[in-house]
C-alpha cells in the first residue's frame, strides 16, 4: 500500500451493517467511518447497539449483512490483517487478576506473535505511556479500577495498533480517573495518530473537536463533526442535539406503530 493511499483509507469503515438476534433487530443498516488520527465518539444509550457493533468489529459474531473494514482490510475475509491493526478495551474486565501486570501483558504479546525480548521493550513503552511503569510487578487484583483501565489501555496498545476501540471505558471510575483516561486517549489520537472509537452513553465525554456518531435503537441518527451534528439537529449543544434526534426518532417509531 502506498503512503498516499494510507492517508486516505479510513481507520474503520462500517458499511451498511445490520444484525438481528432472532426477531429483534440490534443494528439496522449502520454505516460510519473513523478517520485516521480522529477521536470519534459513538454516543448511544444502553441498548442502542454499541456492544453488538463492537462484537461484530472484533469478529465475535459473524457479519451477516454489510461490511466492516479496518484500514481497508475486510474483517470477514481478512480477519488476521484486520485484527492485527486493532486494539480493543472491552467493557468487561479482560485482565487476569491473579497474575501480575507484566504477566498479563506478556500473554497479550504472545497472542500477537511478539517474541518475549521484543515484548519486554514494548511493555516498558506502553506502561510508561499510561504512567504505570512502576507497577509492572504488581498483582492486577491489587490495583484500583482506574489503574486497571489504564493497564487495559496499555494492553490494547501493546501490538502498536492504528485503531483503538473502547467500549464504555469510564464505567465505574471516579471523576478524576475518568478525566485522566479521556485525556490520555485523546492524546493518543492527536499526538500518535491513532484512530479512536470511543463508545459511551455520557454526552459530556465528547468535546468540540471530535467526530460523533449518534446511535439509537440500532440506527445511526447522525454522524459527523460535533458542530455539524449540533447544527444539523437545530439544537443548542450536543446534549440538546442528542435529545432532539432521539426524541424525533422515538416519535417516528410511535407514529409508524399506529
Amino acid at each position, binding site marked *: 500500500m502506498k503512503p498516499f493511499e494510507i492517508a486516505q483509507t479510513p481507520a474503520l469503515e462500517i458499511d451498511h451493517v445490520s444484525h438481528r438476534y432472532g426477531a429483534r433487530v440490534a443494528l439496522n443498516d449502520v454505516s460510519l467511518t473513523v478517520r485516521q488520527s480522529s477521536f470519534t465518539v459513538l454516543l448511544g444509550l444502553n441498548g442502542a447497539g454499541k456492544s453488538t457493533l463492537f462484537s461484530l468489529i472484533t469478529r465475535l*459474531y459473524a457479519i*451477516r449483512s454489510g461490511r466492516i473494514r479496518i484500514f481497508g482490510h475486510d474483517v470477514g475475509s481478512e*480477519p488476521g490483517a484486520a*485484527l492485527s491493526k486493532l486494539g480493543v478495551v472491552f467493557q468487561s474486565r479482560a485482565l487476569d487478576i*491473579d497474575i501480575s501486570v507484566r504477566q498479563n501483558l506478556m500473554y497479550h504479546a504472545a497472542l*500477537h506473535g511478539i517474541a518475549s525480548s521484543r515484548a519486554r521493550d514494548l511493555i516498558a513503552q506502553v506502561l510508561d505511556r499510561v504512567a504505570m511503569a512502576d507497577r509492572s510487578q504488581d498483582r492486577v487484583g491489587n490495583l484500583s479500577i482506574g489503574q486497571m483501565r489504564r493497564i487495559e489501555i496499555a494492553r490494547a496498545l501493546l501490538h502498536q495498533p492504528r485503531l483503538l476501540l473502547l*467500549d464504555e471505558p469510564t464505567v465505574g471510575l471516579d471523576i478524576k480517573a475518568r478525566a485522566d483516561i479521556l485525556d490520555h486517549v485523546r492524546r493518543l489520537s492527536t499526538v500518535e495518530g491513532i484512530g479512536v472509537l470511543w463508545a459511551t452513553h455520557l454526552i459530556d465525554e465528547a468535546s468540540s473537536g471530535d467526530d460523533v456518531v449518534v446511535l439509537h435503537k440500532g440506527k445511526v441518527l447522525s454522524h459527523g463533526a460535533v458542530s455539524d451534528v449540533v447544527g444539523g439537529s437545530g439544537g443548542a449543544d450536543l446534549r440538546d442535539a442528542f435529545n432532539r434526534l432521539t426524541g424525533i426518532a422515538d416519535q417516528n417509531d410511535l407514529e409508524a406503530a399506529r
Partner: protein
Amino acid sequence: MTAISEAIDRHHFSLAQYFICLKGIVWREALRFIHQRERFVSALVRPLVWLFIFAAGFRQVLGVSIIPPYETYVLYEVYITPGLIAMIQLFNGMQSSLTMVYDRETGGMRTLLVSPFPRWWLLASKLLAGTLVSVLQAYAFLLIAWLWEIEAPPLGYLALLPALLLSGFMLGALGMLISSLIKQLENFAGVMNFVIFPMFFASSALYPLRRVKESSPLLYYICQANPFTHATELIRFALYAQVAWVSLAVVVGCTIVFLFGAILAYDPARGFLARRNNPGG
C-alpha cells in the same frame, strides 16, 4: 511513513510466531493453575474418593481375572485406576470447554478471540493448555495411588504421557463440540447428568467389558462404541507400557472428528452462539 506502512501490512505470521502464541496460551493456563490450587485439589479429591472408598468397598466383591494388559489377578483398585485417570480428564475437558463456550462474551475469552491468529489455532492451543493441566492432575493422582501401593512398571509412567495427551485432547474437543451444539447443556449439572455419568458408567472404566457382555450384550455394544472406553483402554495399556491399537485408532479418529466439529461449531458464522441472545448495550 515506512514504519507505519510496514506495521499496517504486517499480518502474515511465521511458524515461530505460531509457537509464540501457543506457548503464551499454555503459559497463562499454567499460571492460572498455580494460582488456583483449590481447583487442583478438588479435581484430585473426586477420583481419590472412588479409589479409597468405592474400590475398597468392592475389593472383596469383585476380583478381576487375568485379562490383558494384566499378567496376574489384580485387585479391583488396580483395575479402576486407569478409568479414574480417564475420569479426571473427562471432568477437566468438560469443565474447561464449557468455560470456553459460555465465557465467550466475557473479557478473558474475548481477549483470546481478538488475536489475529486463525481461530482454529487459538482454540487448539487452548485445548492443549487444558489438556496439559489434566495431565498434571493425572500424574498427581498416580503419585497418591503409588503411595497406596498401586504401582505400574516404571516405563509405563513414561508411555502414559502420549496417551494422556491424546485422550485429554479428545475429551476437551468433545466437550467443546457438545457445549457449542447443544444449547440445553447450559450448565455443568446438565453436562454431568447427560454426558459425564453416561459416558463413565457405559465404559470399561469400572468393570471389564467381558463381564458386561455376560449380563447385557446390548450394553456391551454401547460400551464398545463409547469413545471414553477407548480413552480408558488406551490409558490402561499405556500404563503397562503396551499399546491398545484399536483404542489408539479410535481415539485418534475421534480426536480429529471432534476437533474439526468443535472448531466449526465455535465459528461465529456457523455455531449456535451466532443465534444466541444479545449481549446487551
